[in-house]
């Protein structure tokens, strides 16, 4: 055992930190660039606006990150957003239910739907992508069945949930930031956080070690459902309307984009919450800045898309830890040479032969 230690946790940390920083650097560069390009960008108001835009995204990205780390995925969040908003809206407008109760019921409905997803995927082990893609479509129909006419004109107190400020901070931000804090504590401070990673890396090993491989994903699905429904409630509060047909449409791809941008591996087992936060920030800052500069939406699409492709490259570099180190990882990628085989990763991934890269 006296041979040189292969890539250790330390190095992998360094590298993933560096890749994290690549995104961080991206965010900082954008902040600087937009500030230079427009004096309107770096104003307290606009920054507050950016945080507000990111709040619901963050609220759902946090539990979704944990799901993805476990090797699961929930594509139905977009429609759950719609269902959550519509349920709360209809309760208040049609049945004159007290706003607080309406919110609670909406979140409970989200949790129930999440539990349904969790039962099918986490417990019965049907394919996550197929089941939740189906739920995405089905629940969009459900949202419209519940409220064929857009409920609007909510009680005053309710609106402040989406548009109010507390101590100068937008109310939804408390939920978004809160979700990330709770998720971070869960993931890094409790045993179940380690379990979540273990399930993502090697479900069988986790199972044999006595990890609750069915219950944990189920809970994560339920929480994701609740968070998505709450997100819908916040959006509805902000809009003062809950249009079942459009509320949350496409949200599932946006939130997945943020999480993947943040370096969380789609296959599970790899990634951090910090990365996901950066992914969210990156997306909302980019959108805000380009809107501010009045860039045509076509180019906004192109920028968003290319960001994802770059993220794929960064994630790949992070995976190949054994690399010379630091940013050279990226240089190597470009130079298409020299890349050492990765240290073995998850048991499930056989040691990748470097066939992927070297052409010689």
């Amino acid at each position, binding site marked *: 055992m006296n041979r040189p230690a292969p890539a250790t946790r330390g190095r992998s940390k360094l590298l993933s930190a560096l890749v994290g920083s690549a995104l961080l650097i991206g965010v900082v560069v954008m902040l600087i660039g937009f500030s230079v390009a427009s004096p309107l960008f770096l104003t307290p108001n*606009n920054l507050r606006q950016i945080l507000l835009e990111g709040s619901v995204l963050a609220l759902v990205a946090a539990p979704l990150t944990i799901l993805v780390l476990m090797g699961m995925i929930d594509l139905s969040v977009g429609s759950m957003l719609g269902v959550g908003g519509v349920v709360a809206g209809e309760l208040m407008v049609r049945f004159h239910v007290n706003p607080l109760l309406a919110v609670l019921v909406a979140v409970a409905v989200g949790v129930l739907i999440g539990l349904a997803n969790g039962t099918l995927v986490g417990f019965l082990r049907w394919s996550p992508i197929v089941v939740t893609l189906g739920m995405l479509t089905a629940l969009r129909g459900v949202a419209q069945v519940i409220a064929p*006419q*857009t409920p609007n004109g909510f009680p005053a107190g309710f609106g402040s949930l989406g548009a109010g400020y507390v101590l100068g901070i937008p109310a939804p931000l408390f939920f978004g930031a809160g979700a990330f804090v709770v998720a971070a504590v869960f993931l890094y401070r409790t045993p179940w956080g380690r379990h979540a990673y273990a399930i993502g890396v090697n479900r069988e090993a986790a199972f044999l070690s006595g990890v609750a491989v069915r219950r944990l994903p189920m809970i994560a699905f339920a929480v994701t459902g609740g968070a998505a429904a709450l997100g819908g409630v916040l959006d509805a509060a902000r*809009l003062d309307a809950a*249009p079942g047909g*459009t509320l949350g*449409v496409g949200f599932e791809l946006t939130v997945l984009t943020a999480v993947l941008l943040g370096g969380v591996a789609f296959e599970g087992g790899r990634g951090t919450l910090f990365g996901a936060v950066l992914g969210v920030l990156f997306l909302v800052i980019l959108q805000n800045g380009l809107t501010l500069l009045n860039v045509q939406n076509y180019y906004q699409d192109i920028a968003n898309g290319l960001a994802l492709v770059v993220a794929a490259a960064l994630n790949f570099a992070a995976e190949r830890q054994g690399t010379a180190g630091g940013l050279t990882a990226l240089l190597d990628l470009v130079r298409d040479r020299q890349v050492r085989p990765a240290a073995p990763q998850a048991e499930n991934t056989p040691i990748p032969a470097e066939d992927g890269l070297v052409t010689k």
Partner: protein
Amino acid sequence: SSNSGGASGNSDAPKGKIIGFDFPFTTIAVYGNLKKFAEERAKERGYEMRYTNDNGDLAKQTSGVSAWVAQQLPAIVAFPLEPTAMESIGKRAREQGQIFVSYSVQLKNSDGAVLFPGVDSGKVLGKNASDFVNQKLDGKAKVLILGNDSLDVGKQRNQGLMSVFPQAAPGAKIVSTQNATTRAEGLSITSQVLSANPDVNVVLGYDDDVALGAYQAFLQHGIAPDAPNVYIGSQDGTQESLQTVAKNGIYRCTVAVRIRDIGHAIVDVPADLLEKKATAPKVASIAPVAITAGSPELADYLSDYTR
């Protein structure tokens, strides 16, 4: 009274009292209103209505309407996402003896049309908005335009708007032109533009949904619902927008074609054609009207919804 299986050709035109109404924007507010009035009139005249599920998706629209052609529905009213895309379908329908009516635009291959041209609607909004800017704002304003140039209606309305507004209100500065398709996007984009440019005071929306979102954004930015120097205007005339305009606040105008009239025309035009009423017009042209808090039409338009 149903038609025989695979019949085709003029000699054996499909019979029955069914009208298919294809409206691609299944998720926007005006759709529900339109359906309500169409159903109302269809019931009066003893017709049955059919609808498609396009979701704003061109492929789905094409396939939905084509399916009706294949299934030989007696009459079809279609609102083409892409007008040229509908020509060939209309041609086939007519060859089979089906009645094909276009909605919102005039097609070469159609028996009739229900028209309220987008260009006109945009012009009316441009006129109303420029009047406000010139009279109430001393000709000066900062303007956000919420358009939707991935849709033909969006392009047309914008074209109409831009053919009037800049010339009529030369002192108004267009700060930002953005794409918005939903209420949430209307809110989000307006909010962002407002936090960067707090002095933006005119928003011109291509439809009511995005303008309602913009309205919400102004309220959330602490602007009084009746602030005298703000103008939000849009196009469609949906119930919620009319109600908001009626509050006599910053949401000052929605350019409306009377939804009730359109809803009825959706049934009347094809039904008259089916029943071969020679005298009836083949084209129902419904003029857009700028509805403001002071418009005499407002009460009528609103009452359509409360019956």
